[in-house]
């Protein structure tokens, strides 16, 4: 079945780690919709959230091949129903002099905020799951959107959490 999965990988930061991840996707022909990497709770490690398009077989290969990378510590296929997924978008609009009020209303509905304003422009910030950001951008259709920047999804499992590798008290010591 075609679907989209959000995978979280815990990786050890080394020269070439991100290169290795991306190279794997290209080489095996996995379809990567978004990738987000950032620091996590332990120095020297990162959490990477990957959104992958593909059926269950593709996903199984993808998780397995990621797990095989030496600098990948663990991989979790985040269950949609037991995780939070968030993405942040910055949107620049121009020609807003006559419809600021309407845009502010939409922004209130989407729980967004203005992060910069000019005489005839606005830069707004919204966050949420990818679908709600899609919807918000669609709602801006009548206005003059000049640029959209999105971070890609970050996800975190909320239920049935497997104790994190990093939670072990000895971990930071031994991995230093």
């Amino acid at each position, binding site marked *: 079945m075609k679907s989209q999965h959000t995978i979280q990988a815990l990786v*050890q930061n080394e020269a*070439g780690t991100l290169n290795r991840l991306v190279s*794997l996707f290209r080489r095996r022909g996995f379809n990567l919709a978004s990738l987000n990497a950032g620091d996590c709770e332990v120095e020297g490690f990162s959490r990477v959230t990957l959104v992958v398009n593909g059926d269950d077989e593709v996903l199984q290969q993808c998780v397995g091949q990621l*797990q095989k990378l030496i600098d990948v510590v*663990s991989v979790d296929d985040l269950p949609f129903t037991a995780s939070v997924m968030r993405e942040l978008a910055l949107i620049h609009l121009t020609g807003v002099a006559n419809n600021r009020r309407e845009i502010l209303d939409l922004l209130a509905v989407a729980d967004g905020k203005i992060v910069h304003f000019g005489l005839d422009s606005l830069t707004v910030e919204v966050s949420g799951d990818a679908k709600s950001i899609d919807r918000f951008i669609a709602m801006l259709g009548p206005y003059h959107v000049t640029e959209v920047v999105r971070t890609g999804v970050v996800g975190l499992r909320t239920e049935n959490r497997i104790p994190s590798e990093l939670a072990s008290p000895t971990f930071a010591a031994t991995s230093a």
Partner: protein
Amino acid sequence: MNMEKRTGSQVVMEALARHGVDTIFGYPGGVILPLYDEMLKWPQIDHILVRHEQCAAHMADGYARATGKVGVCLGTSGPGATNLVTGIATAIMDSVPMLVLTGQVNSWAIGKDAFQEVDIQGITIPITKHNYLVTNVDDLPYVMAEAFYLANTGRKGPVHVDIPKDVFQALTDAPFPETVHRRGYTIPGAAPLTDIERAAEMLNQAERPIAIAGAGVIWSETAPFIRQLAEKADLPIINSLLGLGAIDRQDPRSLGMMGMHGEAAATIAVQEADLVIGIGNRFDDRLTGKTSGFAPKAEIIHFDIDPTEFGKCVRTMHVVPGDLTHNLPAFVEAVKPAKRKTWWGEIRQWQAEYPLVVPEDGRFLARHVMKGLNECTGGNAIVSTDVGQHQMWAAQFYQFKRPYQWLSSGGLGTMGFGFPAAMGAKFACPDQEVWAIVGDGGFQMTLQELQTAFECKLDVNIALINNGYLGMIRQWQELFYDDRQSHSSMGNPDYAKLAEAYGVHFVRCDNAADLPAAVEAARTTKGPSLVEFVVAMEENVYPMVAAGASNDNLIMDPALARSDAESLMGAQP
């Protein structure tokens, strides 16, 4: 722990010595000079000076395939490093444990397009199990230890360490680690007993079961359990190309290789089986043919150390993950003794109907050479090959007895592999007879190593199958391109003069009657021997399954239909 300060170069040599490395294969260059200078102080480690870095990698590969130990090769930065790439890719495709060391430009010059700089770490990411660029000498002892550990544990593979010149020269007192531990890297152990029991139950219930033993059996050194399994469950054993040697070909339950050019009886048996047990193999496309037509009547069980192999190519009913060292003995224990008279009756019938043949039509064929080499060496030699027709004939006709005897580039299909791989094997196993079986195409890719063999007085034998063609290419052109021979015909140098120039013993043989004497001369001559077998130019490998076709569509040897098929080989009923 207080350690005396030593240079990065010392750390590298000490690491090699600590891991019992006796031979390394390489070529010097600017940025790796500090290591080459240090090498002079380590007489216990032989450095073999090759004539092209690709061959250093193939020699390290051959060394590993003949012993199960990590092969080590090295080269300088830039072109030295890129020349190693084909050898690294060859090794990863066949899961060969290898350590590749390269010099890199000074760490402060990286990224400046310095002389002989290339991003070799970036280049080898997709063709290594893991790789490193070591920019701090204090990391080097751990990296070297981890590189050996990763290369030779779990599913084996090449590991590459790139070391800048200044890191070779820098001083460190960092100790070697007592143990290596890497978060998220666990060496697979035994499968849950229930997995073994279910597999055993499926085998007990099956009426027409068959097993395919792959190279995983070789690397895990579990071949004795394949024999026990075959005996206890009366189970026919097939080999993948690289699984040859996992069971003695003379064992009555060995059916030989299956697949594109496998033995017909083996390929047919899998199509007719009700249970196929893959053991340490990866269901490569040359073995399965079109996957939707593979083993259509069978349920498939798959034993493998790498879980990503499960379901990658064929749908499996049941999987047994983990190390065969644990899982195979447990499986043998769990299966019930059986006799499968009916099933064997059918298999013997196919074997009788479609044997491998050497047509006696007056021509001197490459098949005569394979059969003759097998007879003259008693099936005991270590045999390496290049890729193509001669490789398939060697796989078909040489009666491999044991693991680590067959060195062939199965996955990548690297021409030019056979000769240097044989050299690596001979360096590793000086007491064993070693033959490189090569075609005239592949041999011309790496024959400069004749000089290396001569200098080292290496007692390696080369069977050069000279048909003046890239034979497999010509065969495909004949069968699939209306015999339009686009660039498959190829001239050859005068090999007698070539051998003389390199100081290598030479015999030319162009008929079957002279073959035993030619082979014997090579065997008894100390130092390298080149035997040129001038064979029929146009000879095809059969049986054959066309690429992309189902294994049901076997093209049989036309000679089977003729009366000249006198000389039969292969497992006889």
